[in-house]
């Protein structure tokens, strides 16, 4: 189920995960505060550039931004009704204002730009490397441990869940909106919890046996190469340019 992009050896995939995480955060921070169309157009060009550099498939990107854009669609339809201004579209008593459409458009742009950058920079890395990179960037150690455990066990419980669903299907269970379904799903969740707590205890015992006392070692040999420095400089330049346009 973990749909991290397989490493395809593209330019983006080879950049140091620490640089990618830092760049994604800085880019997201400056884009989400931008109100000027020029800044967002430059940011969009940069995000699309990342897609090209990362050699990502369009189909998988569309699949990932689908859910986001359904939410955005609701905002675009609702928001302009409540922002006062010059009427732009009028349909049977409802008025979408020009100012409202402008605000909604900015929101849609910002949301999609940040999502694209996040897919290109973060979803393209080895899952465990995300945890190691966050650790190196100063995120509390325990939090990255929780992340690493989660990355390890999510796939496992997903298989477990599918086994349970298969067992239900064999017994002709068909979900509907009734109490039987709610109770059955509740039992599945309960069973997943019981099994996860049992497994956690076994994992802890096994780890204690090997001398675990609250530390995991970072095994990824991150190396900061000239290419990483170049990418970091480019990203920093872009972030500074975008904030300058915004503050001008």
């Amino acid at each position, binding site marked *: 189920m973990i749909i991290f992009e397989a490493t395809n050896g593209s330019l983006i995939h080879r950049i140091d995960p620490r640089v990618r995480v830092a760049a994604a955060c800085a880019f997201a921070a400056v884009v989400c505060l931008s109100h000027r169309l020029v800044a967002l157009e430059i940011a969009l060009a940069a995000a699309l550039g990342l897609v090209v550099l990362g050699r990502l498939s369009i189909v998988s990107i569309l699949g990932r931004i689908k859910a986001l854009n359904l939410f955005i669609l609701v905002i675009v339809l609702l928001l302009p009704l409540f922002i006062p201004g010059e009427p732009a579209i009028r349909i049977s008593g409802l008025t979408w204002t020009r100012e409202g459409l402008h605000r909604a458009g900015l929101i849609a742009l910002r949301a999609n730009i940040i999502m694209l950058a996040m897919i290109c920079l973060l979803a393209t890395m080895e899952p465990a490397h995300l945890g190691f990179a966050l650790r190196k960037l100063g995120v509390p150690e*325990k939090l990255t441990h929780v*992340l690493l455990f*989660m990355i390890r066990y999510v796939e496992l419980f997903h298989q*477990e869940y599918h086994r349970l669903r298969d067992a239900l299907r064999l017994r002709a269970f068909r979900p509907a909106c009734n109490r039987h*379904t709610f109770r059955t799903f509740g039992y599945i*969740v*309960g069973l997943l*919890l019981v099994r*996860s707590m049992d497994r956690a205890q076994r994992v802890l015992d096994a780890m204690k046996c090997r001398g675990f006392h*609250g530390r995991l070692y970072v095994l990824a040999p991150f190396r900061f190469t000239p290419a990483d420095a170049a990418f970091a400089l480019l990203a920093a330049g872009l972030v500074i340019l975008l904030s300058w346009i915004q503050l001008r």
Partner: protein
Amino acid sequence: MHIPDGILSGPVIGATCLLGAAGVLVGLRRLDFSKIPRAGILASAFFVASLIHVPIGVSSTHLLLCGLMGFFLGWAAFPALAVALLLQAILFGFGGLTSLGANVLAMGVPAVVCYYLFGVRLGPAMAGRTVFWLGFVGGALSVVLATVVAGITLYATGREFLAAAGAILVGHIPVVVIEGFVTGSAVAFVHKVRPELLACPLPTSPPKEHPDA
């Protein structure tokens, strides 16, 4: 339910990230090293459980389960949620990076409230029916609280979001009932099969032998 990037205003992003980080730090402080595997593994079980879709008419809804997380994790729900929501944003495009703080708060606050209101009362000695109804109320309340917190962050961004916040609240009314039944059944199930797991704080006694250890 998950607020994406690009909607919230600068001050709201700052405030929610600070508050969310504070919640995560409190949770981490209460998480000693022997509970780290449990927090991570429980978080992955919740992550998978939140993929369950319950059909409503032609549409369907997924479970939030933040009340149930509060029952079993207490304050540790905050770090677990931060990690889970980060992965959800990166992998599925639900939520976002800059709205991570807001989303962590929207689910972490109900989790901790449920922990203090109901979680600490649950125990192996209770009658099964009482356990179910405590779980029901906790699960239902957590969804209401989650939509209210999300609504407040949207409203703080701009008054024009009031309608969107109201739409979210109304849209979640069926979820409140479903979440109540599912949470109640889940707690009742754990109470029936492994009552000792309901004791708060969780005991660290070794579980029964399993062949696949």
